[in-house]
């Protein structure tokens, strides 16, 4: 099989010139080759590994996407789907050049079905835009990865976020898709029915496939009724173990908490400074959010508070008003920047480990001891309700030794998680950075993934070099 190596080279200049001319002819100002726009579409967030696409096109319809993909498939030129570029593992870098499809102008909410609790959106709609449009319906879309990502991008990377513990990830919340296949045909997967056992589950196969199996152009999403009551609480602990144990007990009892976030003492100190959370101490901390009826929320909170108190936790500090809550969650979402601010001049990257909840305490404590032993600054923060946590590892980019230490630490976190039956890609996906880790975790399954990639994209034009190692 040599399709993989074929794509290793950038497309020949003559072919590109023909394609560029054609795309300019068909899409006019929506086909852009300026350096600035290409650079802007060369990377996501996270460690930079920019690779420029040759041209960026802004399609408006499924048919336009299909036409572009058909042309590229015929010419064997890579196509990379792009939302707002907030992915973290190098997903959108145009490793072999080609066409970047920026889907942000496909930004219409196509339908909202109140009674069925679902909606259909174009791929370029962002989650904040969707929730703004849902105002007044009493419904909302809960998945919240922090960034204001597009829903197409969130589906492609199987995004999750702070409230996955209650609402699941994109895996549970995408009901169907419109996808442009590698040969430029438009298919619809799933249906508006809540369940289906007709055919293989193409919907979930495309969700999380990072643009390597097809281009997602529309997403059918599950919606939820806005809870009657929402409240948030903060609880501080004498040590990290007590905080994590509290989470485990709460999960075992099945208390339907909407969010549980863990911040270790270092991260808490960073947030106190960065987001002026001066009412708190730099101690291991849990942030909670509860959704439900007035009575239900009160009951959930009382149950958790008593578990926390058994583990030496402080009494709850409440945030019931919307603005207090958003201040807390904003502080949480800014944790990465807060961590960077601990050591000006340093760079940081986030690891992404996820373990079975029964191993969470072991994994977090061993990781913290490991961090202390390295002498690096690497605060811990995580959606611990589902066993997922991150280290923000800070290092001096000018100091190769420190960089080496940081990378070794991250590698040990990955191996530790895998060794405990977990994974090193809790929610950020594979992209280019985690290809080797995928191989380590999934021996035989990787060759099946490769067969599927070849079956659905025989010429390897869709986001080549990502998600599944082809060699």
């Amino acid at each position, binding site marked *: 099989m040599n399709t993989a190596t074929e794509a290793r080279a950038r497309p020949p200049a003559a072919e590109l010139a023909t394609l560029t001319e054609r795309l300019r002819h068909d899409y006019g100002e929506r086909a852009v080759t300026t350096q600035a726009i290409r650079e802007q579409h060369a990377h996501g967030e996270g460690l930079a590994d920019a690779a420029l696409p040759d041209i960026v096109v802004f399609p408006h319809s499924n048919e336009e996407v299909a036409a572009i993909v058909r042309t590229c498939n015929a010419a064997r030129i890579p196509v990379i789907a792009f939302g707002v570029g907030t992915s973290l593992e190098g997903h959108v870098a145009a490793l072999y050049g080609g066409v970047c499809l920026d889907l942000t102008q496909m930004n219409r909410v196509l339908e909202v*079905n109140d*009674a*069925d*609790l679902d909606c259909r959106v174009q791929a370029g709609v962002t989650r904040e835009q969707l929730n703004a449009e849902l105002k007044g319906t009493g*419904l909302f879309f809960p998945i919240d990865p922090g960034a204001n990502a597009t829903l197409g991008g969130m589906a492609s990377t199987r995004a*999750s976020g702070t409230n*996955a513990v209650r609402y699941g990830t994109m895996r*549970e919340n995408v009901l*169907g898709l419109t996808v442009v*296949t590698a040969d430029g045909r438009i*298919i*619809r*997967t799933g*249906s*508006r*029915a*809540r*369940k*289906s*056992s*007709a*055919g*293989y*589950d*193409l919907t*979930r*196969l495309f*969700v*999380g*496939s990072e643009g390597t*199996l097809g281009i997602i152009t529309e997403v059918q999403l599950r919606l939820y*009724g806005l*809870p009657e009551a929402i409240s948030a609480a903060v609880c501080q602990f004498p040590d990290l173990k007590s905080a994590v144990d509290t989470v485990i007990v709460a*999960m*075992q*009892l099945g208390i339907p908490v909407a969010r549980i976030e863990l911040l270790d003492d270092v991260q808490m100190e960073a947030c106190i400074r960065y987001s002026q959370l001066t009412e708190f101490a730099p101690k291991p901390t849990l942030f909670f959010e509860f959704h439900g*009826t007035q009575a*239900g929320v009160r009951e959930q909170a009382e149950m958790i508070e008593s578990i926390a108190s058994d583990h030496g936790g402080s009494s709850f500090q409440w945030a019931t008003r919307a603005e207090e809550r958003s201040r807390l969650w904003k502080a949480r979402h800014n944790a990465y920047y807060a961590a960077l601010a601990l050591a000006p001049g340093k760079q940081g990257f986030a690891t992404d480990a*996820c*373990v079975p*909840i*029964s*191993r969470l305490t072991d994994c977090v404590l061993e990781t913290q001891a490991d961090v202390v032993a390295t002498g690096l600054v690497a605060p811990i923060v995580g959606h611990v309700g589902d*066993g997922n946590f991150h280290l923000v590892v800070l290092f001096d980019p000018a100091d190769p030794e420190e960089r080496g230490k940081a990378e070794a630490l991250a590698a040990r976190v990955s191996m530790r998680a895998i060794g405990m*039956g977990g*994974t090193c*890609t*809790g929610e950020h*996906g594979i992209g280019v950075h*985690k290809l080797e880790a995928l191989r380590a975790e*999934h021996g035989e*399954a*990787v060759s*099946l*993934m490769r*067969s*599927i*990639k*070849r079956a*659905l994209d025989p010429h390897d034009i869709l986001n080549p070099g990502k998600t599944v190692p082809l060699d």
Partner: protein
Amino acid sequence: MLDATLTSALAAILPPSALLTAAEDTRPYECDGLTLYREQPGAVALPESEAQVVEILRLCHAARVPVVARGAGTSLSGGALPVASGVVLSLAKFRRIVAIDPVACTAIVEPGVRNLAISEAAAPYGLFYAPDPSSQIACSIGGNVAENAGGVHCLKYGLTVHNVRKVRAVLVTGEIVEFGADALDAPGYDLLALITGSEGLLAVITRITVKLLPKPQLAQVALAAFDDIEKAGAAVGAVIGAGIIPGGLEMMDREATRAVEQFVHADYPLDAAAVLLIEADGTPIEVAAEMAEIRSVLTASGATEIRVSENEAQRLLYWSGRKAAFPAVGRISPDYYCIDGTIPRAALPRVLTQIAAWSREFGLPCANVFHAGDGNLHPLILFDANKPGDKERTIEFGDRILEMCIEVGGTITGEHGVGVEKLRGMCAQFAPAALERFLAIKRAFDEHALLNPGKGVPTLARCAEFGAMHVHRGELRHPQLPRF
């Protein structure tokens, strides 16, 4: 009959009692829960170890002989229907519950374990396995995964695909693969979802890690009567539209309640056109709050009577009629045919009214008893196979219902799978471009199409034939439909 060389190769790896080749021994395997279709297999293998499964698959693969995996044989779509020249690979001896981890809330089980046995084993830890197909006393978890089985509790707790963490399976070539992970998310393509509901076409499952949930402290069920089936359908949408996701939300029409009442004596209101059963579960405070809300929505939707179970015995009694609906209908009609179409909830009133109209038109009674909250219909068309023309009219009636399900944006099967039964419907629901993807995935797993051939996904040629049959006066039916 199976090829003699293969038979002796199989005999070399299996004890005599685990390889059935005589016609009288293989007869019990000739069909599953869909008895309309029967086929006697060349042989039945009953391995008891994964190593034997690997060997059987290797041998059959080398000999290019089809293999049909079989659990408890309760499929309602012919998923376990044998192939005449092939081997039935029964997983009935894979009966061990390997481990229960009460901290991680998971159980590791072999595929032959009965669905209900998992919840029974988890009960001492206060845990249960949520998906509960009506056949849960008999059906096996391996079959549940293969069919992505549903059940009453799936509205709130999800289908099999939402409740399985990891699957270990053997590919047709004999390689062992693990799909999914013990942690929340597995990296790369979602092969776990792909294998779930793949109807035995992609791999043979040998071990499953399922999620367990804490058993709710309290459950209460409300029984609501309606004098009009359309109002009952609208009430379902109103409950969900109010943001309530009940533990179960089921509907039975008059035909169904009358059949079950004779059977279970649950004191159902028999003059009601339809009843809804709505369960609230959780802590006592949550249940009380949710039940109050349910009551007010039902009243506003025009319920003529609402009863709420006052104790566990009464709750089980109210449910007994729903659980026993199929056997009860079996008592009042010589034959029945169960349809499994699923629609967006908002379309319920319209679809139910149309089914009632067709029932009159065909002169065939139809009992509706179904997972209303999911929009998963189970019309039971009552007929008498011995009456000339009844069967043909029943199939025509069923086809019309499924076409309507597609037309309103739904699917031809919510939880029973395609099997052999709904291949034709697949051609109506999916465009050729989508069917080609299905076939490409099948080839990626099983190049020679040896695993459960002739099921699940129709070939394009077959669809073309059906298409030709379906062209009516030179016109394709519903040409305006997006075929998804």
